[in-house]
């Protein structure tokens, strides 16, 4: 298998990097998550990531008047070979997290450890060798492929950029192989994107990401633009590729049933913050954050018999603007169980049981002084 081959030097370098990461000085650690990955094989560790987009105004002199806090203090990690699902509604900052992790946006603050190295704020030339390790699959298979390039040259381009193929023949052979891997016919290499259907285009996007033998792929809503029957084909393909090439995924989507299907662990985001992180079964069986509970109950199950019996939590109102996020817990404006303290204290992400993290002072098992601060009269659902 050509794809599976990894240069020894590279592997060693990566290993060295990983050990470096384990011995990072403790000041780089998030104080609220002390030693949260003792002895585990962590590929990506994101700590206190912030991504603000300035809003400028002024006719002649542009002045910054505010920040859109797309991502505000987000921390999570991904183990080698696992899939972390990142789920949330539109505008919650999930795509921004993906892009900031890949340094396509330069984070405002925070650290991004990839294989033990803090890559936050790295310049484009610094990032270039690392791009071979981390790739991105885009949401829209129509706008993410250059209509003037053939499918073969789209998939072959990363090989040229990273100097991975010496001759044209070698490149053609590799492209043909990649096409086969993603379930397309090698003779399709000479076709243009418009000659493919949505699902096939998404396969081309996947082949392009695989071309450089990455270890980590950010999948940004890879199936939301596709029809259900095609969605299943692409999800299965992603799962097969993960098993074959030992890939690690950050799977970003708004559809919780798809995320739950493909992920090992799931992080739920709301308005730039992570509300809850848990493994797929725990999140479904024992959701602790009221937003997760509402999100789960809002997703319909295709079975009328089950649907009849299901209780629904309907959230009132809309998601607030990230330009002026509410103080305290960002969810308190829509939360059915908010108390006074929720309006002032920003809840930190805390591990309430093994691998189950939640940021809600009202969640079961959450230890905080803020709950004690709340007057007893306010401690009931409003």
């Amino acid at each position: 298998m050509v794809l599976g081959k990894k240069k020894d030097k590279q592997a060693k370098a990566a290993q060295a990097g990983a050990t470096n990461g384990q011995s990072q000085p403790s000041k780089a650690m998030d104080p609220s998550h002390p030693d949260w990955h003792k002895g585990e094989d962590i590929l990506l560790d994101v700590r206190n990531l912030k991504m603000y987009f300035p809003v400028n105004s002024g006719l002649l002199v542009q002045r910054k008047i505010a920040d859109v806090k797309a991502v505000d203090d987000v921390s999570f990690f991904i183990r080698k070979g696992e899939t972390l699902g990142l789920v949330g509604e539109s505008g919650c900052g999930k795509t921004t997290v993906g892009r900031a992790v890949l340094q396509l946006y330069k984070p405002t603050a925070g650290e991004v450890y990839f294989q033990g190295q803090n890559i936050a704020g790295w310049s484009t030339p610094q990032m270039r060798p690392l791009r071979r390790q981390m790739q991105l699959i885009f949401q829209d298979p129509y706008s993410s492929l250059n209509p003037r390039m053939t499918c073969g040259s789209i998939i072959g381009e990363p090989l040229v950029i990273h100097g991975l193929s010496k001759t044209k023949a070698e490149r053609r052979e590799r492209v043909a192989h990649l096409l086969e891997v993603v379930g397309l016919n090698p003779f399709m290499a000479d076709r243009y994107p418009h000659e493919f259907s949505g699902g096939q285009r998404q396969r081309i996007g996947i082949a392009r990401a695989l071309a450089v033998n990455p270890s980590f792929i950010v999948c940004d809503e890879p199936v939301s633009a596709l029809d259900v029957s095609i969605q299943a084909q692409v999800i299965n393909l992603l799962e097969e590729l993960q098993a074959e090439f030992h890939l690690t995924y950050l799977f970003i989507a708004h559809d919780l049933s798809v995320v739950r299907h493909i992920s090992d662990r799931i992080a739920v985001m709301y308005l730039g913050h992570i509300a809850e992180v848990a493994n797929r079964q725990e999140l479904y069986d024992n959701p602790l954050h009221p937003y997760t509970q509402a999100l789960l109950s809002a997703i319909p199950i295709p079975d009328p018999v089950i649907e009849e019996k299901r209780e629904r939590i309907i959230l009132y109102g809309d998601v607030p603007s990230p330009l002026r996020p509410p103080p305290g817990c960002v969810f308190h404006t829509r939360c059915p169980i908010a108390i006074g303290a929720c309006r002032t204290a920003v809840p930190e992400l805390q591990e309430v049981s093994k691998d189950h993290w939640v940021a809600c002072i009202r969640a079961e098992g959450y230890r905080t002084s803020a709950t004690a601060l709340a007057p007893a009269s306010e401690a009931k659902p409003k």
Partner: protein
Amino acid sequence: MAKVLEVKDLATYFFTADGVVKAVDGISYHVDEGESIAIVGESGCGKSVSALSVMRLVASPPGRTVHGEVVFEGQDILKLSESEMRHVRGNRIGMVFQEPMTSLNPVLSIGYQLTESLMLHLGMTRVDARERAGELLNLVGIPDAERRLKDYPHQFSGGMRQRVMIALALSCNPKIIIADEPTTALDVTIQAQVLEVMKSLADEFGTALIMITHNLGVVARYAQRVIVMYAGKIIESGSAKQIYGDPRHPYTLGLLKSVPRLDESRKEKLDPIEGLPPLLINLPAACSFAPRCKYAIDKCRSEVPQLEMATDGHVSACFRSKELAQLAKAHA
């Protein structure tokens, strides 16, 4: 129960330079008074065109309804003149479209758009219409309704805009509302709000509801009967319980198996439908699902299956519909 709408052998073709696209090819169904039905299918299966044909909103040329009848309140509305049709549209039949931003006029206030149809169809005075418009916005759950009548569509969020569309569809007390992918453009928590509002109001006013969607989950909760379309034809229809519990067409079965379910207990492999939906130009005289079907036999490739009764009120167009359950079991 009385039928409020009956569609008989409706066919809408598009005449293009490449050939005739049979977007809707002879479909028949009915809706009872106050009933909620769903039309399910993937993009390009003709579900939206079938709704537009009922409303006579298909762009012509290239589209044309070539034959069929749409009987609404005892008359075939395909035979009405354009001015008579305008009294039906928006008045007796309401419509909610997929994209709330493009279906509301961006340069007119919400109040203007709501009062326009009230004054036109119901002959209300401006003052009465204004008051009624405020009530309607209140009804669909828009806070501070009176004041918001002055606002323009861009000042509303996606979910709120869709609520305005529902208010608009309900405004003239229609007998039936056709909702074409009403929540596809919305987030899940907002989706739940909007569907809940739509269903409860339809129940309250006794309005029948046709929901067109690709999301099998949405349908399970809100529809009593489900119609599954593929390549311009109805391939199966029955009560929601029959369709989900005992599907009799391999396409329906495939759709159900290819969506990951939130309540799946362990990580199971999805069972996708292989291949792609057919192009609707020059379809061969055969079952159009046969090329993607796991259970296709020679007969499927040479004859067109007709809708046949499977059980009471449950029809399917498949030569092997009776054996399907066993075939699926053997396959798994």
